[in-house]
């Protein structure tokens, strides 16, 4: 596993990708710090981080797109499978390498509050809490991108899907505002659509219509049952759900010095879930490649 990690690290650092990721994050860190702190005179570094979180929409797809898709296209995945490494080790080595690449610009940006402190007051606790959250958000998003890369053998497709998902997630909070004072029926329809989409995702992952049908049907029934049992709670439920599933929205919480442990736990949870799903995706490939 150490060997693969080393190999991945040197791949990132001998190709432009690692440097693009590092440069973009440091550049936007610099721009927002100049704009908010130097020009705007704010000592709240968490503002800088919250505002620059959109950079992830660009750098995460760049960082993750190759991870598994390119191995499959070049057929080098066969080497990884035939080496004495388990799928878990392969996924972890790649994931840790990406986290390390991301850590480099985070550490550089982490110097900024210290520099600012020389010229004014900075709330160091909230600044570094936000920086930690910023990294955790990155961990969650990398796991998502890595999973997408593991289900395709085309890195461009992986990048575009990841970009689309992150963009949607970024605007999810704002989009949910459309649904303010929406009726329970609107929520119901929304959830039914999601239940069907869930079945579609299951199909894409398993290529099995029966499994997809059953999971879709189960989700539809669950939605209908909860709707008829407690109809009132359905009002605004869709808006609430959209708001809650916005990872970027959780990052924005840190901007207002509201450190909620639950946000950090959810970032980690998403990271774990998608890492496990990536392992499953590799295992599935061994069955049906």
């Amino acid at each position, binding site marked *: 596993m150490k060997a693969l990690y080393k190999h991945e690290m040197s*791949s990132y650092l001998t190709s432009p990708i690692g440097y693009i990721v590092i440069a973009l994050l440091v550049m936007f860190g610099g721009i927002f710090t100049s704009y908010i702190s130097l020009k705007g005179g704010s000592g709240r570094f968490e503002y800088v981080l919250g505002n620059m979180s959109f950079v992830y929409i660009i750098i995460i797809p760049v960082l993750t797109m190759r991870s598994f898709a390119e191995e499959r296209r070049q057929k080098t995945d066969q080497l990884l499978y035939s080496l004495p490494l388990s799928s878990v080790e392969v996924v972890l080595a790649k994931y840790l390498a990406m986290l390390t690449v991301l850590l480099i610009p985070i550490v550089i940006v982490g110097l900024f509050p210290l520099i600012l402190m020389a010229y004014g007051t900075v709330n160091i606790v909230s600044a570094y809490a936000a920086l930690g959250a910023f990294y955790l958000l990155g961990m969650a998003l990398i796991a998502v991108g890595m999973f997408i890369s593991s289900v395709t053998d085309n890195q461009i497709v992986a990048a575009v899907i990841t970009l689309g998902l992150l963009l949607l997630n970024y605007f999810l909070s704002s989009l949910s505002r459309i649904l303010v004072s929406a009726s329970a029926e609107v929520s119901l329809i929304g959830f039914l659509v999601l239940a069907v989409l869930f079945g579609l995702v299951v199909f894409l992952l398993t290529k099995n219509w029966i499994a997809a049908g059953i999971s879709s049907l189960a989700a539809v029934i669950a939605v209908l049952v909860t709707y008829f049992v407690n109809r009132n709670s359905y009002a605004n439920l869709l808006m609430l759900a959209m708001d809650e599933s916005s990872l970027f929205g959780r990052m924005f919480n840190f901007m207002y010095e509201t450190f909620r442990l639950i946000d950090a736990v959810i970032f980690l949870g998403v990271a774990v879930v998608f890492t496990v799903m990536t392992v499953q995706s590799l295992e599935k490939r061994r069955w049906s490649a």
Partner: protein
Amino acid sequence: MSVIEVKHLTKRYGKHLAVDDLSFSVEEGEIYGFLGPNGAGKSTTMNILTGCLAATSGEATINGFDIFEEPKEAKKCIGYLPEIPPVYGSRTVREYLQFVAEAKKVPAENIESEIQRTMGLTGTKEYENRLIRHLSKGYRQRVGIAEALIGDPKVIILDEPTVGLDPQQIVEIRELIASLKGGHTVILSSHILSEVQSVCEKVIIIDHGRIVALDTPENLEKTFRQSTSIHAVLECEPERAREFVEAHFSGLPLKGIDVGTSESGSLLKFTLGDVDEKELARSLFFAAADERIAILSMETKRLSLEEVFLKLTGEKTAPAEMQQEKEFIPEEPEIPENGGEAR
């Protein structure tokens, strides 16, 4: 002692059966050739043996380790070169081999000597600091072979190792493979018969996911070289031609007989085992003369190993003449159906 043991291995892709109840064992220190037309299941079987693919059912052990139950232990005994060499274009030859050696858990102090050894064996030393993507196809193939050899694994599995090489390189790689004999067990797949014939001690012929023959190349050849066929046009009724052959050749090992009609008489095709073809032609001539049956034309045919292979695997690309001959295959091939040589 058999180092690879495969029992009832089956791989199914949806409705397609890629490997169908395959069983064989591979003896230590020997070189096995896996022969079969494209799509016969060679690569699938190799991918299963090396842990790249899971099987639908059946078991496979490498050096006593079950590839499905103890994959890590089993994989430590294997060096694998897949159909497409799994090399990273953005790495140099040395970096790549270094990575593979570390991943195969070669002890740190031996890594340098292993890299040197495998580069030496495959003739890639002069390119050690070149990026692999700048190498020609042949050299990439060599780097792939170096990857399989690194760590000196007991079992080396090579999927079409000479594809894309020039004739000179092919000879070199064949010599390299032959030199592995004794210390290593090698399985190489190919659809080139002469290649298998020149380096392998055992041949496994596979078709539609099934083993159709497992024997030494010499035995396979002997078995089929023993068959001599005669095609003759006799000026008589088909019934009479049949009676005539059965009456005169009943003492000989008659393997198959087929009588049809042609424009000028009966077309007689028959196969005899272990008979001198010249002798056979002569006795047919005199026997026919005694019976006052005119032989309008006569041709003796021998089966080459290529034809054996084509017949066994039912390859469609056989020349037209052979296609015609196909109906004439003896019902029961002489070679054992399933692993006659397995000890």
